[in-house]
């Protein structure tokens, strides 16, 4: 089974091309994306996007390229992330289950748990924090 790397991208949304460029950074290196979830985190248009990416030898180059993409403030690799998936059922109840157990119109949330983060911004590693 291919190891999945969890990536958090923080950048400024100007239009949906922001998401296309993020996805394109992986597509251009023949990589896939397992899942993606994101939200607006500030009033001036800062967004965070979490992605589950199957690891390949191109992973580091994709992260470098993404960190040098206009609109992208920084890219974080949640190095030892373990994903727990929570299913929010239509009636609002939340259960921790595998994604395949979700039914139509249930919402799945991918919750990474991690202790190490490598932060890269415009090609430079600016932080490698251990929580």
């Amino acid at each position, binding site marked *: 089974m291919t190891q999945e790397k969890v990536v958090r991208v923080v950048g*400024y949304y100007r*239009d949906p*091309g922001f998401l296309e*460029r993020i996805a394109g950074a992986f597509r*251009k290196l023949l990589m896939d994306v397992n899942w993606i979830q994101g939200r607006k985190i500030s009033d001036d248009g800062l967004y965070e996007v979490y992605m589950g990416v199957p690891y390949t030898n191109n992973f580091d*180059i994709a992260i470098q390229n993404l960190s*040098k993409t*206009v609109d992208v403030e920084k890219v974080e690799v949640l190095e030892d992330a373990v994903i727990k998936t929570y299913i929010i059922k239509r009636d609002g109840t939340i259960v921790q289950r595998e994604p395949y157990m979700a039914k139509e119109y249930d919402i799945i949330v991918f919750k990474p748990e991690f202790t190490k983060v490598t932060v890269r911004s*415009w090609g*430079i590693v600016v932080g490698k924090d251990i929580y």
Partner: protein
Amino acid sequence: MPTGARITIDALKREGVKVIFGIPGLSNMQLYDAFIEDLKNGELRHVLMRHEQAAAHAADGYARASGVPGVCTATSGPGATNLVTGLITAYWDSSPVIAITGQVPRNSIGKMAFQEADAMGIFEHITKYVVEIKKLEEIPIWIKNAFYIATTGRPGPVVVDIPRDIFYEKVDEVKWPEKPMVKGYKEFPTIIDRQKLKKAAEILINAERPIILVGTGVVWSNATQEVLELAELLHIPIISTFPGKSAIPHDHPLYFGAMGYYGRAEASMAALESDAMLVVGARFSDRTFTSYDEMIETRKKFIMINIDPSDGERAIRVDVNLTGDAKILLRELKKAIIELGIKNEHSNWIKRLKEYKEYYEQFYYYDEPNKLKPWKVLKTIRNVLPRDAIVTTGVGQHQMWAEVFWEVLEPRTFLSSTGMGTMGFGLPAAMGAKLARPDKVVVDLDGDGSFLMTGNNLATAVDEHIPIISVIFDNRTLGLVRQVQDLFFGNRIVGVDYGPSPDFVKLAEAFGALGFNATSYEEIEKSLKTAMKENIPAVIRIPIDKEELALPTLPPGGKLKQVIVRDPRKSS
């Protein structure tokens, strides 16, 4: 009250724009209407190209020759899509080009309107950035931002797409920004790390066979002098990437040529045999290092100076990665070396490379009676042109001959599509270069196949009085493809040979340019002198045998040590 179109023009002028290459159409004609007075009073010049690809190449040539961004414009739909090849060419060669594209009105976008193309979707992966203007007030800041993004960090093209209804809108007061403001963008920093500089200095001082590999970054950083000073200080030979040719005067005794796929064999051998390589303003492209394993196996130490901090983290592990502007870092490195003291003279190493050079020259400078040999043609041209003449190339065998044999004598005088390998680059890039540097002689070294990809722009050169000279190496074939078919596909030649059309002399004359059929070295010299004297666009057609090979070369997927320097057909 100024319109959006007028504000766009004023914003461009505030960035110092003097020339715009383009073609008007439904969605950018408001811009044209806005700059009529600027054309009349000489504050702006518009060059009406015959195809938008050429407009982008001309802007690219302008940027490479001058060091400041070139500007092009196109209408929506086909106008914008025609820019694609030109802009990706600029992107791959790190050239700052600003493209202003018209777009259909906002209320028509996404509705398959007449001449609508999704400029954002098209350009977002083949330029450094593309921005869609959503309202009039955004124009001043985004034109400024476009220039900022294009010229900082690794330079590259930026597209500003403006719906035409915004061009018509008016505003009472324009707020001109003093500074760019791009959220989510950072210039690459120059990091002066004393420990790293000391380590780099120690590696170079202690190396027995050090080499400096220069790339385009040296040109953009104007760091030629710093490279030469460092090389002279430590007696280190210099080689270059193909585009890096433009950085170093080839008559410098420490320069040994461009290495790589079609590079000079002695330069590639120098790269392989060196025990320490200082890479300045170059990335490890697959055209320069055709096999990373081959280079890693040499166990040499690598020092990299690059504006892009992550270029040193890619295919090859770099021992010292210095991030930032080449000019600044080379000065700091020189200081660090002087502080530590010089140890080796490297005279044996330089002697060895000179022996390599002499050895390979017997294969390069091979003459045959009754044939015009490319090396000798280029030597003839070099002898006629002024030292500071600017040369562009198309793409094909002639380009490879230029890589090996063209002598660059001044920085920023050799412009070629080296990253994307775009046929048709030569003529429009030469036109752009000529407008950037009108005092220089500008010559497009081209092939018959490459020239005809954008040759219609000769009409523009004539109409606009842009006196460039296209020298066409006419072998009636797509020679580089033919060569690969011949050598590596078992001589199965297919889909490459042209017939007798066109007659390049008549073609040139039909456009109103001078046409020459130069069938001897003396005629080449004479026609060049005439073209320079007449100072109008000219085409010089030179017949080249289609069996002529671009050597040195490598087998497909080959390593540098597998270099082929003699015609394999003759040895068999």
